[in-house]
């Protein structure tokens, strides 16, 4: 039988560790074990043979680190590794399989590290193509400690082979991967990607894993793999050993099997003896596959969010519809503005963030890819990918680090044909709008019929109904007073007769009415009571959040009313803060705005400015208050009486003041002092220094084009020429990245850019700056501002 039939029918066993055994046979520290497939093939075959002899079903090829980052002769190594395993298998009967073993690349993916997601996919793909050709029976992706790298490996496997895919990750004692994912997040993502078995290996012994296995089993609907180390490593007489023997190991493996693990084996420090004893003790235990779980889950790179338990809030603010500022941010590629919308929604209590960046004049696929990557670098909420463009949808789903919510599919054939293959390939839970070929039915029954059709069509793709969340569409009561009733009836029908969860864009209900929040929040309460599971809504609306918290407290979903109390106390405390701010403003002897900026009080600076511009000329506010206050702080910094945190707090306060004033300025008065490019050079991923310079330059009236970090020279050069830039600011933190700074300057000169170049960063000095041909070395952010002021940049 093939491996998939085997794991369905009975307990299956992996082999144990390879490295420890190779060291015993003479492998030196630092020597690459994969080379032994060629140089010591007898030993490798011997180890595989010993494992088969111990009774295991699957051996892992000696290819953990076989990738093109380490080897030029990949084909030779992998085919030899598989041959070595085949030679051993030929001596045995029964259900014996060869797993092509893939380990972590040892590189961190962007944006935290420097490896591109698609490069990781392609590195994994190289080996998988060879293994598939050489006759491996399955692919084992193991020792993964990052969810994003795991996704890259699984995609490479799906795209280059039809072999079964098994995945095991490394959890620490807190049951988290190194980059933060918990078991629920990993199970959601991996089952979404349709792997065949999943679990954990390495790092911990069976005793520590005993606490984690039940967490995996509680989430998983597919077979669970557990391959522990032989305990934890410790030093005995200067030699490192693992702290449990085969007897204790196998006793603990019995308990792990009883927790519901289906596939057992070992990792570091385990030997054929460990496996033999484990098999002896567990082979007659009753065997059952994990129960099929019925919950609907989406995930980020840290956690999952389950739909159908407590109401889920999907923040709607990352969407240009009806927001001129947001539209402008998209046109200007102002990612910070978009990120800010995300972070503040998370702070306000959103569980999931909707991401819609569609605008006719921009490349939506490129924009959504960029925004999703930026959001997932700093926000750990699951994202809802919201687009009607299938190309943009695919790109975003591909690079998303987790299992996304996808918005949306509808009952038209063209929509289902486009969306369902993507859900099948990348995983996801999809919002299904009850729109059919003839539009939106006017009756609840009509909307139910479309929901039913969508669920049935999804099943044809192997997409379970638990991954469909139906949105029966809220439409304004201002044009049809029956519309809320139809929507509520639809929720009832769909939940009862179709057994799927529901979502609504609730705010549509009040379109065209005054004080919309009153209507929307009341409708939200009725919809929740009717059974609504998620709402796409504005988490900044106090009315909506009030409804949400009260509903949870009233329906017994808020233990001891804790969340409600916290929410309610925040509302009170905001009122108090305002009072305090006003009273200190009255007692202050200095100018209140200047005082707020100098002290770095952001909220107060914004509030006072907003008040001031209703009384006097906005330009006067800028020139007589904001700029002088900034200068006071800047001078203090130069004289070393003010320090970096204060300088930045003042800058943030000034920014808040500017924003309040700018709204009142005429277009003519809004003119900037010129454009400046800022970038951290290629190879460098530190951007704190660059961000400091950016906030100061913006405050002093410059338009900053922030190209980000790890920016190739060509990109900087293209941008400088295209925008006829007068000043380029480059930052580097390490001696190893100064050469790319030099390269960037050289390229700018060669291609005739008129821009002056100012450089800065921890390792730079005046000598270094002169050596690489920079025009100016700025030792800190204020110096960059002062230098910019000496140039005419318009």
């Amino acid at each position, binding site marked *: 039988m093939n491996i998939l039939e085997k794991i369905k029918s009975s307990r299956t066993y992996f082999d144990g560790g390879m490295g420890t055994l190779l060291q015993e046979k003479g492998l030196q520290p630092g020597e690459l074990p994969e080379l032994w497939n060629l140089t010591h093939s007898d030993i490798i075959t011997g180890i595989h043979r010993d494992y088969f002899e111990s009774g295991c079903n699957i051996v892992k090829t000696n290819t953990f680190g076989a990738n093109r980052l380490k080897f030029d002769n990949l084909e030779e190594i992998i085919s030899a590794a598989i041959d070595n395993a085949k030679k051993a298998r030929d001596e045995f009967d029964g259900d014996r399989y060869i797993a092509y073993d893939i380990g972590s690349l040892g590189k961190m993916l962007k944006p935290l590290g420097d490896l591109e997601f698609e490069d990781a996919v392609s590195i994994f793909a190289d080996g998988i193509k060879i293994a598939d050709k050489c006759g491996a029976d399955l692919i084992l992706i193991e020792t993964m400690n990052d969810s994003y790298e795991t996704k890259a490996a699984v995609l490479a496997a799906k795209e280059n082979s039809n072999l079964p895919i098994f995945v095991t990750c490394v959890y620490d004692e807190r049951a988290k991967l190194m980059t933060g994912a918990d078991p629920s997040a990993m199970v959601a993502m991996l089952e979404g990607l349709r792997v065949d078995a999943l679990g954990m290996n390495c790092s911990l012994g069976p005793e520590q894993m005993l606490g984690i296995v039940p967490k995996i089993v509680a989430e998983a609907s597919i077979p669970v793999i557990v391959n522990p180390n032989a305990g934890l490593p410790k*030093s005995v007489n200067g030699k490192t050993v693992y702290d449990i023997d085969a007897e204790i190991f196998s006793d603990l493996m019995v308990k792990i099997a009883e927790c519901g693990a289906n596939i057992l084996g070992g990792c570091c420090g385990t030997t054929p003896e460990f496996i033999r004893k484990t098999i002896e003790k567990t082979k007659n235990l009753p065997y059952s596959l994990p129960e099929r779980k019925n919950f609907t889950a989406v995930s980020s790179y840290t956690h999952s969010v389950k739909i159908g338990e407590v109401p889920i809030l999907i923040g709607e603010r990352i969407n240009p519809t009806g927001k001129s500022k947001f539209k402008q941010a998209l046109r200007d590629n102002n990612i910070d503005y978009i990120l800010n919308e995300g972070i503040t929604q998370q702070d306000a209590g959103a569980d999931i963030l909707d991401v819609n960046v569609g605008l006719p004049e921009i490349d939506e696929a490129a924009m959504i890819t960029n925004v999703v990557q930026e959001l997932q670098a700093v926000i750990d909420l699951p994202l809802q990918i919201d687009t009607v463009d299938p190309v943009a949808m695919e790109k975003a789903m591909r690079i998303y680090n987790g299992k996304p919510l996808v918005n949306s599919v509808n009952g038209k054939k063209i929509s289902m044909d486009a969306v369902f293959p993507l859900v099948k390939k990348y995983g996801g839970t999809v919002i299904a709008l009850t729109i059919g070929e003839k539009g939106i039915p006017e009756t609840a029954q009509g909307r139910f019929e479309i929901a039913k059709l969508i669920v049935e069509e999804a099943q044809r793709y192997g997409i379970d109904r638990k991954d469909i969340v139906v949105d029966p569409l809220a439409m304004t009561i201002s044009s049809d007073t029956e519309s809320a009733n139809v929507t509520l009836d639809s929720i009832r029908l769909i939940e009862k007769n179709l057994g799927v969860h529901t979502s609504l864009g609730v705010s549509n209900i009040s379109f065209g009415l005054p004080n919309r929040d009153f209507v929307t929040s009341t409708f939200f309460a009725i919809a929740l009571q009717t059974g609504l599971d998620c709402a796409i809504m504005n988490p900044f609306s106090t009315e909506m959040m009030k409804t949400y918290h009260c509903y949870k407290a009233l329906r017994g979903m808020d233990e001891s009313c804790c969340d409600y109390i916290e929410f309610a106390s925040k509302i009170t405390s905001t009122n108090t803060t305002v009072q305090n701010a006003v009273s200190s403003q009255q007692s202050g002897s200095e100018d209140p705005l200047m005082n707020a900026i100098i002290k770095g009080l952001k909220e107060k600076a914004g509030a006072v400015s907003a008040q001031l511009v209703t009384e006097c000329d906005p330009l006067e506010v800028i020139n007589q208050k904001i700029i002088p206050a900034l200068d006071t702080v800047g001078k203090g910094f130069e004289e070393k009486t003010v320090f970096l945190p204060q300088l930045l707090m003042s800058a943030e306060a000034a920014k808040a003041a500017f924003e309040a004033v700018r709204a009142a300025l005429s277009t003519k008065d809004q003119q900037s002092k010129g454009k400046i490019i800022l970038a951290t050079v290629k190879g460098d991923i530190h951007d704190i220094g660059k961000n400091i310079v950016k906030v100061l330059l913006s405050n002093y009236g410059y338009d900053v084009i922030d190209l980000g970090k790890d920016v190739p020279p060509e990109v900087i050069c293209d941008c400088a020429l295209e925008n006829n830039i007068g000043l380029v600011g480059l930052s580097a933190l390490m001696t190893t990245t100064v050469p790319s700074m030099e390269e960037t300057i050289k390229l700018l000169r060669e291609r005739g850019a008129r821009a002056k170049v100012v450089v800065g960063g921890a390792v730079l000095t005046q000598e270094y700056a002169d050596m690489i041909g920079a025009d100016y070395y700025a030792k800190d952010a204020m110096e960059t501002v002062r230098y910019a002021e000496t140039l005419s940049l318009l």
Partner: protein
Amino acid sequence: MSDFTVELLFGSNEQAYPIKSEAIRYLGYRKSLPDDITDSLIDKCSEELCAVVSPKCCYVRTSVEFPDENITSFGFGGIKSHALYTHLQGCSEVILMAATIGISADRLIGKYGRISPAKSVIIDALASSAIENWCDSAELTLTKKDKLHCSRFSAGYGDFPLSYQKDFIQYLDTARKIGVTLSNSLLMTPTKSVTAVIGIGASSRTCSNKCMTCENTHCIYRL
């Protein structure tokens, strides 16, 4: 898969708490103190950072040899460095270690980098102090049986080339053991990570003030 017998040490969060006075020094305050508003912001940032640190360390204890003048060897070939050679004179053994406070600190710094540079800079300084504190704490645990040992010495100090970072990372299998990886330009991720060698032996010295042994006398952070 390779499984060299590198040992692990996991810390409690408290062992990787930042030391406020150190963070304030990294922020450029020399003899002065932050004003009340800044001070309370530092406390708030500290609280956020403490909630997410995840201190981990992996290490190997091995012998050290000096095959030639200015050449030091501990398992991955000879390292040519006068500073390292001098620092380890008299030692018979070394502990090679790598430590990190985890990737969440980077995420926090990155998040505030986009919305509040002041908080970003403060958390960065706090996190630098946190990793130092964790290294001190780990070093204490690792050397508690050894009466005499040297202070930590890292690639990049003096003429000990930064390129040896690669060997440390590979030898200690840090990607797998504690999640520390190296970029092509030799930057570690998580950024708040340290690799170091601690010399152990009868005639070695301890050094309580790290600044005093550093050759960079113009450093703005020098005590």
